[in-house]
């Protein structure tokens, strides 16, 4: 039996990604939102639910003001860092399923060039309270330093190597070169990765994602409406969010090599009623190379500890068995909080992936990761008319 669609992504929008931009984060959110709404064939006033993403996300009221929405029925936030976007799809579907809304907008946009660096931003967030009180004064400032001990322990316990981390960076970079809207435009080899400077051991510069400006947005609609809308529908078959043990400090996590995604993934796969072999394309949150390896394990593509070997030999490349981050990811396209991953999965399943299109892709997944280990996953499939 074909699994029931829980909801559909009916509109996607992205701005050009850049650095050192003068455009405000609100303008980016509005630009990306207008693109997504037009893509869905809707008017901005048709939006009746809004779930803004990210610390710099404008409140829903800004969209009411700028779009002239007369009857916004629902607004919410999903403060899970890079997992917020995928988690927001779940929240949107809950609101649609409850009959509260018809079309939920999930906007994101940021101008980090004009704002504070990541090491400053996170310590303004309540989710990081314990880290800010007890670890920040010691020098645990930025995500690279907070996440590195997870990777180091994984390497010590399982023999994961820096060259295996490089495999992720190299595969994703090759995809960015196929994408006209990617910030990174030069090829990368394993040797380039190994020669890049150490940031927070074991993370080298090329293990770390970009800081970038721009916006991305999606529209989620009820699946029975999606069939009649402008864009080819992409259905959400399975979705879940998961919160790790000790969500507020990695230091105390019983197993610091296991993320919240490990709790969410089995739920999403069961909901979608598909197996891992059915996944044609994966867009996996890649704030750091190792986080991709860990998520592959936590989703069950391989056993815990085997992720390093799993990514070898180009498995994540376009012509490998699990094409991953076909847009270039946070590592080489742009850091748009993983909203760019959602947009890319929808493009792939519409068969609008351009030079990076995975041939005949019908089923794929997107993950989010953020705030010290929160996770979310959506399994999507090419819909039908």
């Amino acid at each position, binding site marked *: 039996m074909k699994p029931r669609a829980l909801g559909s992504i009916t509109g996607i929008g992205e701005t050009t990604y850049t650095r050192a931009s003068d455009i405000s984060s609100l303008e980016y959110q509005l630009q990306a939102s207008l693109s997504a709404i037009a893509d869905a064939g809707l008017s901005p006033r048709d939006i009746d639910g809004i779930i803004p993403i990210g610390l710099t996300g404008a409140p829903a009221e800004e969209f009411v003001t700028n779009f002239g929405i007369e009857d916004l029925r629902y607004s919410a936030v999903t403060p899970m860092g890079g997992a917020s976007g995928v988690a927001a799809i779940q929240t949107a579907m809950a609101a649609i399923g409850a009959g509260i809304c018809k079309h939920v907008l999930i906007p994101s946009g940021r101008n980090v060039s004009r704002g504070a660096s990541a090491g400053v931003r996170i310590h303004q967030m309540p989710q990081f309270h314990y880290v*800010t009180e007890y670890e920040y004064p010691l*020098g645990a*400032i930025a995500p690279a330093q907070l996440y590195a001990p997870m990777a180091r322990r994984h390497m*010590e316990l399982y023999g994961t190597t820096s060259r295996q981390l490089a495999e992720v960076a190299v595969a994703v970079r090759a995809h960015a070169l196929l994408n006209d809207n990617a910030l990174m435009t030069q090829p990368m080899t394993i040797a380039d990765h190994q020669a890049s400077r150490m*940031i*927070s051991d074991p993370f080298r510069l090329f293990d770390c994602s970009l800081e970038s400006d721009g916006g991305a947005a999606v529209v989620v609609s009820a699946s029975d409406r999606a069939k009649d809308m402008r864009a080819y529908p992409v259905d959400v078959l399975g979705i879940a969010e998961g919160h790790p043990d000790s969500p507020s400090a990695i230091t105390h996590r019983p197993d610091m090599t296991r993320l919240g995604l490990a709790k969410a993934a089995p739920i999403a796969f069961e909901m979608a009623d598909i197996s891992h072999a059915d996944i044609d394309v994966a867009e996996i949150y890649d704030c750091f190379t190792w986080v991709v390896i860990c998520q592959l394990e936590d989703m069950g593509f391989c056993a815990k500890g085997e992720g390093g070997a799993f990514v070898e030999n180009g498995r994540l490349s376009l012509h490998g068995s699990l094409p991953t981050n076909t847009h270039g990811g946070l590592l080489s396209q742009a850091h748009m909080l993983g909203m760019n991953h959602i947009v890319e999965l929808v493009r792939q399943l519409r068969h609008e992936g351009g030079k990076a299109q995975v041939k005949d892709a019908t089923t794929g997944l997107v993950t989010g990761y953020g705030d010290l280990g929160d996770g979310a996953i959506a399994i999507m499939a090419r819909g039908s008319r």
Partner: protein
Amino acid sequence: MTSERKPTPHGDRYATIYWDATSRGELHIQHCSKCDQLRHYPSALCPHCHSFEHDWIVASGRGKLHSWTVCHHAFHPGFKNALPYTLVTVDLVEGVRTLGLLEEGTAHELTIGMPLQASFKKREDGFGDLVFQISGV
């Protein structure tokens, strides 16, 4: 220049108690007065019995290495002159884990599970940095 100083603790109710103890060279761990369990970092409720009642113990500073990172990039100007420095995650013998710094110059010797002993190093702001050194077995 104040911007060149390391960030100082903000000090909510529990953090103030914790950091004040570091200035006396003591590692305070929160203890549930009702069910006798330790918890770290300090929090409002005991996650085991949900009691607000608590007191504090002074930990030994002995523990074993759980993980680490050697920091080569300063994400805050206050750490520019401290590079490289090593953050260590340590399983304390009392049964809770904590983050600390590693004594300079010993990062190349680290392996998971190795015994460590903490002491406090006076900070510019008067509080103490929890600094571990590799100890004999």
